[in-house]
């Protein structure tokens, strides 16, 4: 059952230096309980997409077209009051830097209580009990005492757990995790991702995991969407994407990632860099970096081929 669907979403930022077309024709859907990875280089539009889904885009952002539907409700046209009721309760987000995202001058327990008071209709006393319970659920040792701590008194891994407790306090149906473990140790990363995975399985929560780490996405996601310069270039079940990538960019991305059994000389760098998203762009934004480019690539609009029922590629000359 589809929980979230993004249909042909285009978004641009108006800046003094011109209009930056950050997302173009993005189409994705997410089923209940599914974990979808979104991978790509920085600047590919991963975070812009997640902010747009949550309706917390920068004021300079303009939606140029498309729709975002959450259980049938179009989030882009819904009144602000409906969105406020949804965010934090039905859909929640974990941000990249927990220390910046948490309120630095409020004890972490209070911050969780705030969400519960706003959305769950609990009394203060109930909220306090539930906040400590949430801290315990994300395996923070001594949650009673930790609830009174401020973010600066906790390690990065602990703060990230608090963020997760905050996001999951109202048992949302959708969790967007934007680089939730960047900057954390691999051991902490594994613990945090295990936690998100366990909680998602328990309550059939859908997760969008945004990361630039292909290895992490490979291990944790059911399906993966690859983004390049504001386009979703390939979407496929995880195993298919890694064993038989069909977009030339996906193949390059995999070939450049360090992994066991591969020597330095075998890593293939990706030539070129992301194009400037201002001004005129060819239908395929990867064309200038692509080794397979030919006349067909610039001829018509970017095709979206279903090479298999579940496997979409936005390429005129797929592998």
């Amino acid at each position: 059952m589809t929980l979230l669907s993004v249909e042909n979403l285009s978004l641009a930022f108006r800046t003094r230096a011109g209009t930056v077309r950050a997302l173009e024709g993005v189409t994705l859907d997410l089923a209940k309980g599914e974990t979808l990875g979104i991978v790509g280089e920085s600047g590919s539009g991963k975070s812009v997409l997640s902010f747009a889904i949550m309706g917390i885009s920068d004021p300079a952002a303009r939606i140029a077209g498309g729709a975002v539907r959450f259980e049938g409700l179009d989030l882009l046209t819904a009144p602000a009051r409906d969105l406020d009721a949804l965010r934090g309760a039905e859909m929640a987000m974990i941000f990249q830097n927990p220390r910046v995202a948490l309120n630095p001058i409020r004890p972490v327990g209070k911050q969780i209580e705030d969400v519960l008071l706003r959305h769950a209709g609990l009394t203060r006393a109930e909220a306090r009990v539930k906040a400590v319970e949430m801290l315990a659920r994300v395996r923070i040792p001594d949650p009673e005492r930790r609830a009174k701590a401020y973010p600066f008194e906790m390690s990065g891994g602990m703060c990230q757990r608090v963020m997760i407790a905050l996001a999951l306090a109202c048992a949302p149906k959708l969790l967007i995790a934007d680089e939730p473990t960047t900057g954390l140790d691999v051991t902490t990363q594994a613990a945090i991702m295990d936690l998100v995975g366990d909680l998602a399985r328990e309550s059939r929560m859908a997760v969008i995991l945004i990361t630039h780490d292909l290895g992490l996405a490979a291990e944790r996601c059911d399906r993966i969407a690859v983004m390049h310069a504001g386009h979703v270039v390939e979407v496929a079940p995880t195993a298919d994407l890694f064993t038989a990538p069909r977009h030339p960019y996906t193949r390059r991305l995999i070939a450049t990632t360090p992994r066991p059994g591969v020597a330095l000389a075998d890593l293939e760098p990706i030539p070129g860099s992301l194009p400037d998203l201002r001004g005129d762009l060819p239908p395929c934004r990867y064309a200038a970096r692509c080794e397979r480019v030919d006349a067909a690539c610039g001829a018509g609009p970017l095709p979206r081929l279903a090479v298999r029922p579940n496997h979409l590629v936005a390429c005129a000359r797929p592998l």
Partner: protein
Amino acid sequence: MRPLLDVLDLSRRFPVGKQTLHAVDRVSFSIAPGEAVGLVGESGCGKSTLVRMLTRVLDPSDGSIRFEEREIGYVPAARFTGTSDRALVQMVFQDPTDSLNPRFTAFDLIADPLRRLKGPWTRATLTARVEELARMVGLPVELLGRFPHQLSGGQKARVGIARALGPEPKLLILDEPTAALDVSVQAVVLRLLDDLRRQLGVSYLFVSHDLNVVRLLCDRVLVMYLGRIVESGPADAVFDRPAHPYTRALLAAIPSLGEDKGERLRLTGEPRSPIDPSPTVCRFHGRCPMGEPRCAEAMPALRPVGDGHEAACHFAGD
């Protein structure tokens, strides 16, 4: 071969109220000329404190740092900058955006350490040297007039490497030099670093928690846990036959493509406190999947488990 750097029983303690935090606790290792050594461990394990002592911006509490058989550990950090040894140990910092002065052009960023540590220069010789360095790291000479914000991440990384190589160091300390880069650029920078080491014969101490990257670049690996080295050895041996349970957990935690690792070794619990740690308890005890009573009775010392391969665990080699 005589080691380039020889560290013996190096410690650094910080007072915390009436107690003492043992950030680095009796660490010994050496680096041969031209060798690339990886230093891995989680945040808070003392990597940075160790690096700051080796680069001589922080004074050790105990122990010796011998560089080309000369003791440099006793020179106070404040005076080390004035010695001729300063040029010999240089550092490439983690985030090229934060570590480059935003008001310096790429030219000045590369020229600054040259002006301070080398010379005398004329305008012509300095320009020639900066351009030579830019070419060496693959930075187009036309970009030397740009400021950091006008450069891409990969170009900034190249500036960081060029300015560290300028004073012709014999030891280059690299602190997560590719952590801020995209994978597409990372491969290029890693290859550049590998080429430069072969070309210049400089030694690397490569600090990272990305073990996939360490494996690509390093001959030998040191694994640190709570201020101590718990395992060291040739990179292949440590990665293929890790002898310390912490190293095994670290390797199991790396997400990787296409390799099924089966049941993951999960670490539970929090690390022990580095404040006044008991000298008779293994630092990994409590988090270790194989803890036994004797782990709380005697701290294991490093002992050989293979050719040049050592581990500090009672069960290593069993």
